[in-house]
């Protein structure tokens, strides 16, 4: 009887206009990619508060992804620039306190980049599997 392989759970904050659309494109094009993602559509990557990311880890996410439009393409003109700055700070602090840097990622995925989205998820799942479940920030009942 084979032991159950660890399947990491990824929470992905996807901006509605680009990344979420990109993930939809992957879906309608029947591209295959691991089912480990819990996608959450947000209006803009700039609206992702650091609390969403921390809360995801607190509730037990093994990995968190924030994905938005490429710089210059933001539906709200500047939202992704603010996100870029804010997420950089969150990433630095998470690594500083000792969380594995592989667990938190940010990407630019446009509405046309269905394939890129699948690759990001595939790579993310591959890099998380050897790390095992996230226990450091997880709330224990």
């Amino acid at each position, binding site marked *: 009887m084979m032991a159950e392989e660890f399947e990491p759970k990824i929470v992905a904050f996807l901006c509605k206009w680009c990344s979420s659309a990109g993930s939809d494109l992957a879906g309608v094009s029947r591209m295959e990619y691991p089912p480990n993602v819990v996608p959450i559509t947000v209006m803009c990557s700039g609206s992702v508060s650091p609390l969403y990311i921390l809360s995801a880890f607190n509730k037990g996410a093994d990995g968190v992804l924030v994905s938005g439009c490429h710089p210059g393409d933001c539906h709200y003109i500047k939202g992704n620039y603010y996100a870029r*700055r804010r997420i950089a700070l969150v990433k630095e602090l998470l690594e500083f306190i*000792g969380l594995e840097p592989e667990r938190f990622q940010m990407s630019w995925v446009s509405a046309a980049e269905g394939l890129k989205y699948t690759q990001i998820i595939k790579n993310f799942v591959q890099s998380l599997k050897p790390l095992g479940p996230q226990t450091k920030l997880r709330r224990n009942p």
Partner: protein
Amino acid sequence: MVNIEDLRNNAKKLLEDGKVKYIIGFKKAANGLRPVPVFIDKPEDAAKLIWDPLCIHNLTRFLVDEKRRKARQKEPDLRPVGLVVKGCDSRAVNVLLQEKFIDRADIHIIGVSCENTGVVDEKKLAEKLKEKTVEKIEFGDNDEFVVTTDKGKIKVASSEILADRCLECPAHVAVVYDVLIGDHTKRKLDDSYKSLDKMESLTREERWAFWKEQLEKCIRCYACRSACPMCYCDECVVDTITFAVTADTTAEEKAQKIKWIEKSPVLSENFIYHFIRAIHLAGRCIDCGECERACPLDIPLRFLNKKLEKEAKKLFGYDAGFDPEAPSLVSCFKEEDPEDFIR
């Protein structure tokens, strides 16, 4: 050299002329070595003001109380409040001005010089002068402190007992003021972030073990938050659940009242509290060290904020608290902000 009479006379005149409602400064404690904050509204009380290397507090915090007090009064006295500030404290004033939390006209800033040194770390002092009882500390010449003990006066090199943050301080003199008491001194600063070196040289798992041990101690007394001038939110994001939901609360407001963390002081919740506080202070924290000093369990909170201060400088070229006209760190961006971490 700061002439204490200059400070006192200045304060006295301000009060005599009725230019300020009251002045927030330091006075000798009736009990214990460390001075305490004092609120002076009578000219004759200006004689109580003191200035010495033990004036650790960041009095800027009391501007938040003043604003709340004014909001509660029906006919508030609109005169400015006088505030005695060190270099670091004045940067906090700048941040509050930057965020339009207060008006420049609401404060009369009395800057004092740290005489090229800074404030004393009481633990280092106790360690240095083990068997002696300290009665008084004064600024001396040649980067020294003159310590009066029960066994006579001793000169101590400031670098031996200065607070860690003073060793990295970029603002020995108030950067914004209406009047400056003391000289414009400039201390040579080699490395603004030296205190982070040891922590950054640890492996990731060592750092995790360190923070786990420290934050398990946290009892969530929120002294760190209460002591910080920049934590002025009426409803802190970790407290939203405790605020009232009435018949008038709209659905949107209710949706905002999300319980992000539990009240229980367990590690996972403590982490989120300290982490989000550090993030909310990114580009705003000016390293007055009050959070760490207030903590009853000696948790080294400064490091979290210092790390983000370093990143703000390194990644975005941002310095907090020098320019009240500058936008805040996270409400601006540059085209060339780094994005090498983005896939």
